[in-house]
């Protein structure tokens, strides 16, 4: 397959940050095209700087390229400056590895961490010359597969994808590859539908075209059912058990371009059972599966050697909850003593944080700020969302941090949570002032900072809040304004408290894309045709373009932007994703939703009895946690010195 590089190269001096399009990253690979039986293009549908560090794509890229006869290359969203030049010069969407045309691959896998990549998918398909509508594609076009968290409700993009993979991808891509290979070797029996039928029958793979959706007159869904034999009524998610058997990425990609995360990441566990009711990630990735302390240490050692990064991120949904996090942090700090290698826990719960841990994490690196996510402003609000952290817990933790040399604390919140009133949001200002007071008291100094970050809440599928009314953006913006005024009203504090917020409008569109059904596909297409791209970037996002697209598409229909977002759903309503099984029992989700309104709390099933969310029995999985009792041995660091 010919490289598009010579056509692309003359365009690059004219665009912003050309390095993002050239490939050649450390640990990337270009395999021989002709000796591959199955060829994957993997796309993270956002800019390179966001997409390159994505762990999901990196893992699948390596897993696939390790397979004999299989080739995987990466492609990312192209900024409008290069897109324009490519259209003028007839250069199609390309992979950054071999600069091959995306349309020439057997499969195009897209990883959707959020719904905000949908318009970028359409740009990429169009630039690649692949028909946007899946039903218009022929045997000459790749099979377009969506994965990632947003794939748990792919209905809004059902028209554009051939299938969606639910759950963990490592084993799923191997299974898909084998099916496609066999189908190709057999002479592609049954054409495109033939391979999709094989995929649908394999489990964990959803083929939207094999399901029909019927609607009631009032706009709600009547039923979703398969329209042919051998297609399951419900599609189960896939769960990888024993993370130690999947130590990926082994050779993490190291970009030349600057990206959002300049560090090496090791996933220390997958899943979370803290039960925060807003958190889709925590709900759809159950149960908790820990990587062992020795498995983590081996990955850190190999990854640092392969990349040269100076910081190691110990990733998970709540990293301080690993059963051996203290031993892990101490063992790693000992091993890399004197090397200027820093450790970080990107997400830490207030109640799982302690100073010993924080000191170990910063022993060899830099002591930057501490970040916590109380999410709700008042104790009442935090009970509603099941984030069981009291204001006093937070103040105690923060005081200890200030006493130990930290000077900056960042707090993350959401606005527009179910049952929220103005005073719940205003309580954030009270909390921030108490944080400053605690810092001043602990240090005797005034040089204390607290940054409050707040954005709009979006109810997500497969969570107890999937039935909730999303707060309208006018209310969100009004509360954010009130909060800002309150923070700034007291001059003794206003200089010490930073206030960062995202206005509510993007959350409304995210809400439409999150809980939408197949009818939302036309809105996405229309918004994209009118120029919508890069929805995660405020300079490219246009609420008005989205809102008018929704108005035009839904003009003579019972549904609307409001209908999909601010409308509360009732218990018996068929939800667009009911046939996609994350393992969560819908009755349990409903009862948890009802309990949230009265402030009922649910404990973590790692440390208390099972509360019957339904995942383990229905998916045949179980909680996998330590402690293993093992420790991380010291290794000598061998510098390149004369002896």
């Amino acid at each position, binding site marked *: 397959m010919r490289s598009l590089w*010579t056509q692309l190269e*003359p365009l690059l001096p004219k665009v912003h940050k*050309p390095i993002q399009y050239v490939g*050649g990253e*450390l640990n990337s690979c270009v395999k021989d095209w002709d000796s591959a039986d199955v060829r994957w293009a993997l796309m993270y549908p956002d800019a390179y700087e966001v997409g390159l560090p994505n762990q999901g794509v990196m893992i699948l890229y390596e897993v696939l390229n390790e397979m004999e006869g299989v080739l995987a290359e990466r492609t990312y969203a192209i900024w409008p400056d290069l897109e324009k030049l490519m259209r003028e010069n007839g250069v199609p969407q390309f992979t950054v590895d071999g600069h091959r045309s995306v349309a020439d691959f057997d499969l195009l896998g897209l990883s959707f961490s959020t719904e905000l990549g949908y318009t970028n998918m359409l740009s990429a398909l169009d630039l690649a010359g692949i028909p946007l509508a899946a039903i218009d594609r022929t045997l000459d076009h790749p099979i377009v597969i969506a994965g990632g968290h947003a794939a748990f409700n792919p209905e809004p993009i059902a028209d554009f994808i051939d299938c969606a993979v639910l759950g963990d991808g490592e084993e799923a891509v191997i299974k898909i590859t084998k099916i496609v290979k066999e189908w190709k070797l057999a002479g592609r029996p049954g054409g495109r539908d033939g391979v999709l039928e094989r995929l649908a029958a394999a489990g964990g793979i959803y083929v939207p075209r094999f399901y029909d959706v019927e609607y009631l007159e009032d706009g709600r869904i009547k039923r979703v059912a398969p329209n042919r034999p051998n297609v399951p009524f419900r599609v189960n998610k896939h769960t990888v058990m024993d993370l130690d058997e999947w130590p990926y990425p082994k050779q993490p990609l190291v970009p*030349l371009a600057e990206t959002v995360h300049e560090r090496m990441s090791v996933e220390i566990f997958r899943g979370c059972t803290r039960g925060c009711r807003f958190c889709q990630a925590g709900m759809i990735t159950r149960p908790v599966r820990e990587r062992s302390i020795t498995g983590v240490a081996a990955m850190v050692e190999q990854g640092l050697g392969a990349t*040269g*990064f100076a910081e190691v991120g110990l990733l998970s949904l709540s990293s301080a909850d690993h059963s051996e996090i203290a031993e892990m942090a101490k063992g790693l700090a000992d091993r890399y003593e004197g090397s200027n290698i820093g450790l970080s826990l990107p997400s830490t719960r207030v109640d799982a944080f302690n100073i010993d841990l924080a000191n170990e994490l910063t022993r060899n690196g830099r002591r930057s700020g501490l970040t916590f996510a109380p999410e709700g402003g008042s104790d009442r609000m935090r009970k509603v969302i099941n984030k069981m952290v009291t204001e006093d817990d937070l103040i105690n933790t923060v005081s200890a941090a200030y006493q130990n*040399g930290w000077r900056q604390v960042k707090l993350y919140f959401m606005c527009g949570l179910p049952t929220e009133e103005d005073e719940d949001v205003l309580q954030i200002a009270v909390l921030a002032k108490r944080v400053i007071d605690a810092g001043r008291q602990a240090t005797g100094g005034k040089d204390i900072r607290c940054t409050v970050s707040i954005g709009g809440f979006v109810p997500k599928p497969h969570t107890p809040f999937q039935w909730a009314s999303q707060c309208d953006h006018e209310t969100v913006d009004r509360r954010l304004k009130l909060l800002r005024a309150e923070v700034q009203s007291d001059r003794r504090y206003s200089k010490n408290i930073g206030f960062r917020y995202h206005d509510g409008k993007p959350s409304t569109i995210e809400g439409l894309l999150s809980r939408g059904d197949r009818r939302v596909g036309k809105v996405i297409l229309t918004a994209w045709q009118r120029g919508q791209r890069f929805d995660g970037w405020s300079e490219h996002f246009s609420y008005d373009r989205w809102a008018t697209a929704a108005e035009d598409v839904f003009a003579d229909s019972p549904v609307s932007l409001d209908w999909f977002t601010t409308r509360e759903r009732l218990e018996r309503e068929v939800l667009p994703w009911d046939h996609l099984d994350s393992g969560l029992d819908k009755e349990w989700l409903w009862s948890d939703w009802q309990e949230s309104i009265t402030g009922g709390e649910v404990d973590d099933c790692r440390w208390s009895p099972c509360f019957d969310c339904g995942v383990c029995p229905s998916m045949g999985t179980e909680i996998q946690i330590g402690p293993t009792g093992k420790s991380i041995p010291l290794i000598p660091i061998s510098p390149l010195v004369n002896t």
Partner: protein
Amino acid sequence: MEAPHQQEPVVQRLRFRYAKRGRLRFTSHRDFSRAFERALRRAQVPIAYSSGFSPHPRVSYANATPTGVASEAEYLEIALNRVADPELVRAGLDRALPIGLDLIEVVEAKTSDFATRLEASLWQLRLPGVSKAEATSAVAELLAQNEVIVERKTKDGVRKMDARAAICTLFLVPDPADDVAIVGEGVESVILNAVVRNGSPSVRPDDLLAALRVVAGLVPTSPALVTRLAQGSLDASGNVADPFGPERD
């Protein structure tokens, strides 16, 4: 707060010539310096760190080429806290960097005036779609001027500057078979070599191209491919000398 960790003293300094080749010419200087710091760690080079609350590896760079310009003659210096074999360090770092960012040569620093020796650069400009005759007359016309004012877009708007004074020599490379440029393939083009003084305000290859446009309306059909071939002190006949010369004595 605890006092910052005192870093170990510097015991050796190494100077490198490195290249930015092929598609990696699109690496910006910031991109390169991040990649180089990672390479230092991968190759386990005993790099010295600055003291202070956020220690940085001690690396200094000289005159980086603009993004998109290839180079065979970039220079940097590193400080070590253990004495190391320079050639082993070079080979280790070169292996740790992507192909296309290549460490070509290393010397142990013996002099302190290295930066001042980088007086001028030899640039090679490959101009696609330009004929020999056009190029010859444009070069003659440019050299005949005492001053050629060009405009350069900067963050603060458009800046005007003279691109002529810094040019020492400018000529057509007579036989493209001798051409050592490592960029571009299959495009008919002419090749210019230019020795340009580095000083301030620096005249960059873009300014040179702008000057050819201003005096003779010379515009390549697709972007020029530029390579810095050498940097060093200027001799009497306008040639660029090897800046590592004094280090080797």
